[in-house]
């Protein structure tokens, strides 16, 4: 019995001994507060951030807020008590988390805003594609598609939003509509798919096809909503190309729909670049060093850091994906993470 116990303790000691160097090499733990895991972009962001942060020596832990602002506020309070090297926050509500960000920074913990900027208070770093800018890129694509189809920028667009309580979708709508204002002959019908639920989007498309059979283009604010839109088009006897389709976020399902000919354009959020930028600058963020404004090469994409009222802000522009470039591995929807390891910015 003694021997068995001694062997078990011996094995455990050996295991701890092998683990210790791994901990010793880690520069610290970074907490990522993700708004939800019911969305492919968010689940993709967890694996991308984890992978890139590991490459520069940080361990990452993730907390999911299930799209609840109060839950994320509690998570912030808990994480502050743990004194991590840094907190990466993708806020459920862009501004409700302001006091939590301020508390964390007051406790000496750097806060990074990921994908969802908080502009009402200072953060140590913000990495975004820009939700309003996604709307702009979508508007440019809509302009091009309508011109090709109708000879001029005119026609009817059905815009399927996400949940109307989510600032993310409202910002895309704002960006899209402010650019489309330049074209008075374009009528935009905007309807929300409550809780980002796919079958709600399908119902909207079915109803609108009856009420407005002359719809030229359907723009859904997430690729998974386009899947339901396509199912409704199919049920209505439509074939790929009968009605133009566009969506945003660049999820794998969107790229599949492009390959099948249903989707014309997917506006991608450069997930890998957004995540890589955070990791590349994490040493500077943790050590509270200055992040100089200017251009940065982020895994082959041009990221621009500017000093904003809310702190250093890196923007990596989103790209329009269509049939011509759908297989480009740089798009996160193709699920081929970059193989080259990133390096911390000196």
């Amino acid at each position, binding site marked *: 019995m003694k021997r068995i116990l001694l062997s078990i303790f011996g094995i455990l000691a050996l295991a701890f001994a092998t683990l210790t160097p791994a901990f010793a090499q880690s520069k610290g733990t970074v907490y990522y507060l993700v708004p939800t895991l*019911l969305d492919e972009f968010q689940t993709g962001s967890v694996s991308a951030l984890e992978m890139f942060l590991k490459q520069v020596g940080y361990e990452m832990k993730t907390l999911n807020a299930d799209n609840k602002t109060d839950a994320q506020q509690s998570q912030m309070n808990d994480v502050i008590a743990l004194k991590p090297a840094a907190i990466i926050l993708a806020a459920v509500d862009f501004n409700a988390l302001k006091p939590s960000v301020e508390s964390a920074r007051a406790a000496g913990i750097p806060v990074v805003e990921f994908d969802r900027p908080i502009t009402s208070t200072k953060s140590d770093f913000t990495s975004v594609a820009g939700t309003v800018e996604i709307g702009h890129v979508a508007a440019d694509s809509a302009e091009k598609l309508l011109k090709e189809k109708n000879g001029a920028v005119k026609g009817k667009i059905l815009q399927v939003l996400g949940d109307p309580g989510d600032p993310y979708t409202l910002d895309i709508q704002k960006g899209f509509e402010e650019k489309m204002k330049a074209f008075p002959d374009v009528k935009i019908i905007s309807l929300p798919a409550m809780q980002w639920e796919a079958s709600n989007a399908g*119902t909207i498309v079915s109803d609108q096809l009856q*009420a407005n059979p002359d719809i030229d283009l359907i723009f859904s604010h997430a690729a998974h909503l386009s899947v*339901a839109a*396509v199912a409704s088009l199919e049920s209505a006897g439509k074939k790929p190309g009968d009605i133009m389709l566009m969506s945003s976020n660049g999820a794998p*399902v969107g790229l*599949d729909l492009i390959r099948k000919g249903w989707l014309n354009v997917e506006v991608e959020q450069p997930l890998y670049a957004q995540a890589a930028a955070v990791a590349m600058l994490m040493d500077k963020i943790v050590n509270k060093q200055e992040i100089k404004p200017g251009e940065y090469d982020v895994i082959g994409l041009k990221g621009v850091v500017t000093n904003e009222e809310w702190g250093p802000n890196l923007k990596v522009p989103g790209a329009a994906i269509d049939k011509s470039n759908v297989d480009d591995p740089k798009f996160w929807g193709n699920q081929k993470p970059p193989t080259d390891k990133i390096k911390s910015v000196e």
Partner: protein
Amino acid sequence: MNPRTRRILEFVLDNLVWFMLLFVLAIFSAFVPNYFQLGIFANIIEASSVLGVMSIGLALVIIAGHMDLSVESVAALAAMAVGILFCSAGIGYGYQIHPEWLMVPVSIAVALAVGGIIGLFNGYLIVKAKMNAFIITLASYIWVRGLVLAISGGRSAQDLAPAIRWFGIQRLLGLPLTAWIAIGCFVVFSLIMAKTPFGRHLVMIGGNETATFRAGIRVTRNLILAFVLAGAIAGLSGWLLAVRTSGATANLGIGLLFNAFAAVVIGGVSLKGGVGSLPGVYAGVLLLSAINTAINLMGLPANFTQVIHGLLVLAAVMLDTFKQTIRQRLA
């Protein structure tokens, strides 16, 4: 009041939800542009198929004097199971069975089994272990949705096998087959509730469980069966959801539970148990779907749609309460 007037009034009260539906359809047809057309009415029936089937299971356990909050998550899990097995893109494995039509019964069996097992689990804890139905099914609502997330990793499955998807595309008399499945379910379960001992026993159990037990009726067995049926029917609604959206996402079906409750209550089922009929529930489902469609067509600002939806549902429930008051006065 003479007997003829009384009979007419009772007929109207018994079918008030159908009259409400006709009234709402007439109002929307008159005032909402593009509402009055066959295609829109077909959409209303089609859009109500998933909610309708889910509401049947929920109504059974409510009539039996209990409740099941897990039906929405169970539907999502069944949809995800079917999606993972029979979708060819995303996280789908794309399993093929030959001949292809066999995929239909197999996928339905998978969905029913997933739902039935969770229903059995709920039923056992509630009926045998005497635990609170609200808490047990609330826990299932949470853990089953968590399981959907865990097995999908937050990713989605798309491109359902054409043999299964066929039910969402093919139409009979202008309605997709999924809508006919929902109508068929309502007919079958309405007959079960009205014409079989099991149906009548459920109503009796919901009215007075102790008296039913003393009358020699197997309360425990019937109640567990009601939970198993609620789970299996929720599984079937998940199958319909997967067919309708050609796959499954981790958040599929979110929000359906509250609509199902609204439909059941509007349909005249008492939350206290022992009262209610399934045709009324179907009218409630159609009423909600008619309201939803009107909101879609009115093109209201996105921020206000939830408010309007909620207020219209509230109006429908208040009207139903008014009906109960008149009925009490008649009695």
